[in-house]
């Protein structure tokens, strides 16, 4: 018998999580329900769908906090996210399609931690910080330390993901995101990348660059970040290309080949630092 709890509030959610660490944390179900009849039923379901405590977007001057239960549809349509965090809105709009965006959540992407999670390179490039909670209290984890391996994270067995805190990029920082796949909707990406590049004129003073689908988890490519610092746009593109080449070791799989992924990743990152 599969247990089921739809908590009224965060306290009940955390208490249920602590009492049943083996239960499935289910929000929109777009990952966890795939092929459900052919998989063993979970011991129980902790239903987090539209739990108000994790379903919000809070905006301040420096930070946008997005609840883990916020759907990608809500992220994509939020006027402040669209205006000030374009790459996140753009990624949200290309996650699955309408039906998936209506159900899939930020917390689901972060918790499942697939190497091909569409939003994850954006969270890395924007230097997000996650806030998690348990009955023991709350803690914050820089997102760049969150993924510990293939689909594994720092989340402890009694914890829930509350929200992501995203620093709003300043006026001198341009942010970008791009994914490459068979088609824009639905298909799982072959390569994706995101960057936040701070410029003084055309001089790169600082950059964060992230790639997805080229390693067992989404990665920051610090070799690129070091290579472009102090360079002018254009020059920086060639430095970035060389750094990507040395830094990543993508694999062959059903969706693409290592060689294709490597070439596309180089082009993608180089384009982030081109003049346009």
């Amino acid at each position, binding site marked *: 018998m*599969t247990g089921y709890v739809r908590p009224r509030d965060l306290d009940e959610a955390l208490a249920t999580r602590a009492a049943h660490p083996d239960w499935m944390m289910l929000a929109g*179900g*777009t990952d966890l*329900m795939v092929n459900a*009849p052919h998989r063993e039923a979970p011991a129980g379901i902790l239903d987090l769908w539209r739990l108000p405590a994790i379903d919000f977007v809070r905006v301040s001057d420096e930070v946008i906090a997005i609840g883990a239960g916020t759907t990608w549809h809500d992220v994509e349509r939020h006027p402040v996210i669209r205006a000030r965090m374009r790459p996140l809105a753009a990624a949200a709009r290309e996650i699955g*399609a*309408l039906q998936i965006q*209506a*159900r899939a959540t930020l917390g689901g992407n972060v918790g499942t931690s697939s190497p091909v999670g569409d939003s994850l390179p954006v969270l890395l490039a924007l230097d997000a910080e996650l806030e998690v909670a348990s009955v023991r209290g709350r803690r914050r984890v820089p997102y760049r330390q969150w993924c510990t391996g293939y689909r594994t994270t720092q989340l402890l067995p009694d914890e829930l993901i509350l929200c992501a805190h995203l620093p709003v990029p300043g006026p001198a920082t341009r942010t970008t995101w791009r994914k490459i796949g068979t088609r*824009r909707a639905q298909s799982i990406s072959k390569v994706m990348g995101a960057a936040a590049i701070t410029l003084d004129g055309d001089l790169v003073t600082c950059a964060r660059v992230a790639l997805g689908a080229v390693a067992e988890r989404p990665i920051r490519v610090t070799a690129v970040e070091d290579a472009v610092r102090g360079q002018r746009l254009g020059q920086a593109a060639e430095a970035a290309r060389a750094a990507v080449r040395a830094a990543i070791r993508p694999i062959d799989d059903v969706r693409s080949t290592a060689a294709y992924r490597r070439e596309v990743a180089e082009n993608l990152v180089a384009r982030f630092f081109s003049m346009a």
Partner: protein
Amino acid sequence: MKVTLEVNGAPRTVECSPWKRLLDVLREDLRLTGTKEGCGEGECGACTVVLDGEAVNSCLVAIGQCDTRRVTTVEGLARGEALHAVQRALVACGGAQCGICTPGIAVCAANVVERGLIGDTDDATARARVRELLAGNICRCTGYQLIVDAVIAAAREIEGGAARQAEQRIDPV
């Protein structure tokens, strides 16, 4: 567990595992077989229903999550003998071939036009928008040309007056 949900305007109660899919409850328990299973992975959109005002893949929804929720299936689009504008347009434009994807397309398109998501734009923009909004509904027999024609025809009929009100009717749960 016991789940009571509203399906096509009527309250329905089922007793089953919370892990059972909404798709299977609709087809097996409620005998509403208009909703089709294509891939079972949320890729094809054949099982699209409207849940609390939004088009979703019913193969990815656990029935446990549906207590007190509102569902509209393809059987709920028509009013008696009167087809929904989207259904009429699909017929008029010939926007169907084998039919397996058609219920999902009709439900998704009806949801999109009722919410006013296509908007009052020029034809080229509207076509691009329809293709994006229906990107989660895959047809493997025919092209999408006639389907897009139908959705635009229905949108032109519905959007404007009724559409704006429809979006406001969608209450968060």
